[in-house]
């Protein structure tokens, strides 16, 4: 199989765009920046599609097994004989799929932003950051080396930080960007230590080598990592858990999710790209990348499963009460990523039981489209009403028909209504859960109902319900804003028909998903129930919903306050880190450590002050000291030596 270095261009074009816009955008390029960004992404997306076509259809390997291909690889930094960071491009079904998804969604977002961000002061900066993000995300998905993925992991983190904080003069945006970065950074700490464990444990940082050394039979590295244990848990489990923590942080899994809702302070297209379609699924991608290793450790798989389930349920519940439309979407994202993760958790590695794996990545694929669509629609809505709050909206279907339609499609897709994209992927996840663990299945089922409910709550509140007071009627926006909605809407409808299992499996061997119509009844029913409930409560303006929420009392309030998780974090950081550690550390430094230095100086001065009396200015005293010195020395030499 021959791939040429053009693949590198997929990454390098956005990078070039970033450098160009970042260095010269403001002064030289100005309003053309958006065009530059879009052109770059078009090229990149085109190349990605070409690569995918090549990978899946042209250069089909013998036996039809899609293997990992590494067309490019350079040693970037050598740590020691075995360990080095290599910069390379890894093509396997998952990464190729991700390449397409990322470039495509990014292109859509770029397009949308052309109109959405028009007139912003830092227009070119915005596109520069978007390009930077795209570059980093692409780098992340094609990583060949666990350290490479960590690097790009950090880079997407920082691009996310920069983009969330785009409206830098808004204190809330600054706070949100900070929070996002720090929380994910905290998770990355786990990732880093996990990398160290895996790297030193296996003697390699290369994905392929790590996987083969840890899964191959009778490998000394594998045995070594399993037998060494710390606190009763094997080194391997530690390492995987820590790596997973990294992934969970990026993917906003409970309890590291707190940054995601706040991250909605960023421009909405950014949320569509980063906090819906691409970056937040990095955790899923990471687990999938190391899936062979993860699947050897049932305990960690359980952890992944239950983290996913809890996040899915938890986020869905909270989403029902939020009134900021972007926050609802954010929680919905978290919930959907929960799905993907537990699907991985319940999956196996062999062709037979890998439904979960396939479903997870399939859901990732479809979710990228409909969730970015949802966000872009939300963006369009916000652009229209200049508010994020549901109560400021309503009855917008007449004003923005295309948006309305797109949003509806996306809602149906996420609710798992056939034949929209979400249906197929969710179906597969539920099937995997059913095959593996019943409690998981039931929870997932219930959650899918709740999902439908809150999505349609959102939909009805925005497009139906009461009439919003619009300040100015400037229509739905430019073509560049509508086009992405249309394209993504189409994909959300037909995306599910893609024969995913034939191409993307954990082993590379094509399989095919079996659709049991009977199995689909329950989920679809749950979905419809959710929609209907939402219809009853929210289709028309009424106070029914308020009554219900009032009747739940504390439960509702705590739900509305997101179960006080933020407060706990605040307590930990403010009260413990700052007050209990930071302050004492600073105090100690100033008063004890520095104090000791100053005291030693002052003591010297004090002693010098105390002995000044010896220099009394009186000749006779001098003479007495003189003779006393002689006598002392003599006595010392004679008797005390």
């Amino acid at each position: 199989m021959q791939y040429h270095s053009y693949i590198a261009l997929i990454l390098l074009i956005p990078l070039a765009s970033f450098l160009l816009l970042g260095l010269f955008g403001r002064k030289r390029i100005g309003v053309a920046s958006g065009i530059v960004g879009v052109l770059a992404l078009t090229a990149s997306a085109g190349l990605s599609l070409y690569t995918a076509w090549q990978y899946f259809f042209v250069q089909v390997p013998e036996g039809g097994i899609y293997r990992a291909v590494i067309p490019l690889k350079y040693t970037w930094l050598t740590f020691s004989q075995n360990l080095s960071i290599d910069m390379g491009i890894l093509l396997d079904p998952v990464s190729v799929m991700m390449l397409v998804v990322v470039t495509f969604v990014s292109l859509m977002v770029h397009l949308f932003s052309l109109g959405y961000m028009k007139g912003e002061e830092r227009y070119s900066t915005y596109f520069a950051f978007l390009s930077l993000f795209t570059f980093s995300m692409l780098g992340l998905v094609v990583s060949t080396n666990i350290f490479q993925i960590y690097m790009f992991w950090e880079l997407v983190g920082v691009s996310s930080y920069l983009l969330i904080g785009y409206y830098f003069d808004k204190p809330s945006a600054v706070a949100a960007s900070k929070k996002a970065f720090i929380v994910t950074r905290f998770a990355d700490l786990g990732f880093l230590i996990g990398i160290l464990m895996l790297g030193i444990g296996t003697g390699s940082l290369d994905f392929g080598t790590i996987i083969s050394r840890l899964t191959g039979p009778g490998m000394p590295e594998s045995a070594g990592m399993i037998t060494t244990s710390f606190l009763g848990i094997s080194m391997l489990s530690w390492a995987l858990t820590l790596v997973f923590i990294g992934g969970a942080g990026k993917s906003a899994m409970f309890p590291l999710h707190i940054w995601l809702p706040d991250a909605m302070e960023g421009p909405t297209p950014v949320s569509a790209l980063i906090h819906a379609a691409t970056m937040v699924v990095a955790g899923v991608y990471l687990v999938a990348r190391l899936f062979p290793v993860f699947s050897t450790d049932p305990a960690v798989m359980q952890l992944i499963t239950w983290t996913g389930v809890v996040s899915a349920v938890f986020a869905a519940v909270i989403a029902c009460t939020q009134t900021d439309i972007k926050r609802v979407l954010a929680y919905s994202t978290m919930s959907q990523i929960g799905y993907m993760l537990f699907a991985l958790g319940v999956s196996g590695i062999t062709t037979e039981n890998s439904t979960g794996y396939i479903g997870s990545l399939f859901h990732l694929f479809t979710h990228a489209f409909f969730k970015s669509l949802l966000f872009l629609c939300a963006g369009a809505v916000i652009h229209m009403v200049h508010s994020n709050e549901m109560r400021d909206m309503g009855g917008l279907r007449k004003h923005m028909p295309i948006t309305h339609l797109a949003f509806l499609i996306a809602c149906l897709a996420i609710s798992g209504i056939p034949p929209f994209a979400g249906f197929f992927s969710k179906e597969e996840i539920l099937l995997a859960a059913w095959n593996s663990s019943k409690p998981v299945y039931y929870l997932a089922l219930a959650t899918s109902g709740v999902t439908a409910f809150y999505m349609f709550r959102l939909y009805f509140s925005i497009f139906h319900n009461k009439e919003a007071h619009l300040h100015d009627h400037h229509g739905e926006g430019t073509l560049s804003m509508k086009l992405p909605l249309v394209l993504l809407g189409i994909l959300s409808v037909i995306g599910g028909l893609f024969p995913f299992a034939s191409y993307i499996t954990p082993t590379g061997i094509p399989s095919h998903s079996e659709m049991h119509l009977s199995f689909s009844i329950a989920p679809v029913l749950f979905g419809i129930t959710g929609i209907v409930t939402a219809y009853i409560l929210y289709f028309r303006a009424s106070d029914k919903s308020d009554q219900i929420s009032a009747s739940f009392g504390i439960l509702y309030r705590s739900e509305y306050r997101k179960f006080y998780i933020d407060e706990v974090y605040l307590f930990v950081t403010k009260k413990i880190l700052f007050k209990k550690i930071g302050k004492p550390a600073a105090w100690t430094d100033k008063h004890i450590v520095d104090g000791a230095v100053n005291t030693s100086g002052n003591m010297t001065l004090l002693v010098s002050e105390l002995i000044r009396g010896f220099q009394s200015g009186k000749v006779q005293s001098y003479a007495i000291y003189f003779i006393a010195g002689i006598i002392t020395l003599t006595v010392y030499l004679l008797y005390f030596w």
Partner: protein
Amino acid sequence: MNEIPLTHILFLSTALFFIGMYGLFTRRNMITMLMAIELLLNSVNINFVAFNKYLYPDKMDGIFFTIFIITIAAAEAAVAIAIIIHLYRNHKSIDIEDASNLKF
């Protein structure tokens, strides 16, 4: 003569030495301090003469040293007295305690 041991002469000179020293330590008048110093030097002279005579009569090192010490003592006394008189003339006091402005 021989029944007086050399050590006795040395005791004498040592005693004189420390008497002089005591005087130097306690007299507040500069001129009396100078006298005490003369006592000190004289006791050393006794030592030199006695050693020379009783122990090393071959050479005359001790005797000569004594002569030079006497000379130097005179010179020293002269300069000291000049300084004292200058001090007195300018400040009307030869109390050593009054001349302790330079200190610490």
